[in-house]
């Protein structure tokens, strides 16, 4: 089931200064993580990833994912510790046609003489806020036993 990425997180994903990591899984279930700054969110709310190398592990794992319905994850981290994770499924890859051509030209204008193997479309399935503040609040609410007691001690009264 597709899910919508909140507007502020789209803003972070589309921020060139944010760090974006694509996590895929190989045939043995071993995660493969790679920084992929080409990731962005399109107008339909889907993740778009431009793969430069046909033989890359990410590309092979994405092929496996689209063939067998497996999920991938994208982690985004921005300024001030903001981070979140999008789980999604690759639903389409463009290797020719207008969208491929657009990305081919854009990437080459940015990076110079590079090739493009494919433009992947990933449909978001779940969005998880990964920042410490959000996760800490969630944990305290859902798992009240997961705290160290010294963190709960009343602050000492200031000396007179």
């Amino acid at each position, binding site marked *: 089931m597709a899910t919508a990425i909140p507007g502020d997180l789209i803003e972070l994903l589309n921020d060139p200064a944010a760090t974006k990591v694509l996590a895929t899984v190989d045939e043995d279930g071993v995660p493969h993580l790679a920084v992929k700054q080409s990731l962005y969110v399109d107008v339909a709310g889907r993740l778009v990833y431009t793969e430069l190398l046909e033989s890359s592990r990410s590309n092979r794992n994405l092929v496996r994912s689209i063939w067998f319905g497996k999920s991938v994850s994208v982690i985004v981290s921005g300024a001030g510790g903001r981070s979140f994770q999008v789980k999604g499924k690759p639903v389409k890859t463009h290797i020719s*046609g207008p969208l491929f051509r657009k990305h081919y030209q854009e990437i080459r204008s940015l990076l110079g003489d590079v090739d493009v193997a494919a433009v992947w479309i990933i449909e978001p399935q779940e969005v998880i806020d990964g920042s410490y503040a959000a996760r800490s609040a969630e944990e305290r609410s859902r798992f009240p036993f997961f705290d160290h007691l010294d963190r709960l001690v009343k602050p000492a009264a200031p000396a007179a």
Partner: protein
Amino acid sequence: MANLNLAIKEKRPLSRAEVTEKYPDIPPLVILKADVQRRGVHYSEAALGALDLELHATTGTHIFGARDGKIAARPESFLLRDGSSIITTPTPLELDPYLVDLHEGRPFLFEDGEPVEEVDYWPRPDFYDKTSSSGTLMQNVVSARPQRLNIFPYRYCTFWNNGNGCSFCDIVTQMKKGKEELGIPARLDPLEVKEVVREALLEPGRYAALFLTAGSNVAGKRAFDDEVDYYIEILQRVGELFSVPNIPSQLIGTAFDDGQLERLYRETPLTSYTADIEVLGEELFNRHCPGKAEYIGYKEWKRRLVRAVDIFGPGRVNTGLVAGVELTSPGGYKNEDEALARTLEEAEDLASQGVSTVYIVWSPRPGTAIGDQKNASLEYYVRLAAGLHGLRGKYRLPIGFDDYRRCGNHPDSDLSRLHNF
């Protein structure tokens, strides 16, 4: 599972759903592709209405004909979601093809009235509507797949001169239609080919391979010298466009002798070589390919393929099968198990010597000697794909020159996308 068990018990051919369930390691999209190739397609009026002549490639320049025998503006073929192509032919409705119709405004494959999978019509190349300096429409000189430029230098095969053309081939019929109905030159001018390729390469990111094929030409001082000379001339002219001596390219030609292979490799930018043996097994080869048998012979065809590996290198030579003809009458294997075992045995003999084998799904075409027979079951094509793919894994044979992107017509080489060699 219940349906699958019942089908196995009744020994009836498995449906696509049953094959998908039985072979969970084969991607459902590859199974679908093989089934669509096997059964063909029929376009609804709505699907044809969605064909935009400015955006989509339409049929017209095939070297081989359509299953329904017509030349008309229809989608050339289509892309699946995974980036692979389904190269298929319009097929009469009575043969139970998949229907291409619109679903939520987009072209979809339909089976039994249900939408099965979204498809995209192949994008139209920029150069198609331009004309060469001779005034010929460029699409009639060079054609294209989503990532490949096709050059069909001529459209005849001299094996037909004494009636020894292959049993499944309609190249001559198609040549006549192409010449009469579309004005396609029967023989291309190498300089004009260069002119059109130069124009095609102006489209950014569009082409990842150059491809040549034609029929066999026995003429020359040694048999096939004229065919080789002509390929060399075209490849050299096209090669002048590039800054590197070798370019990603494939030639499907006759099984040439050592000297001819050496010339192709040394005198041109060609980087891979294919000589289609069509069917594995000497008796079947003699029956279905009498011209190839007359001039070269089965064992010599195989020897030349192996010799080509010495010249072009491992992973750069293969041979193609028209899969399904090995089961036709008379003379075919008695059942699919036997056909699979014998075919893979021969393919392994080649693979162990560096030659890959790929297949296309045989599409019975009107006007051919076996055009009134049926091709094999879907399960057969899936098992064959898995078997040939497995051989490439066992002998570590890369197939990048004939894969989903650079060709798109082989379910077995689609599977190589997961290989790391």
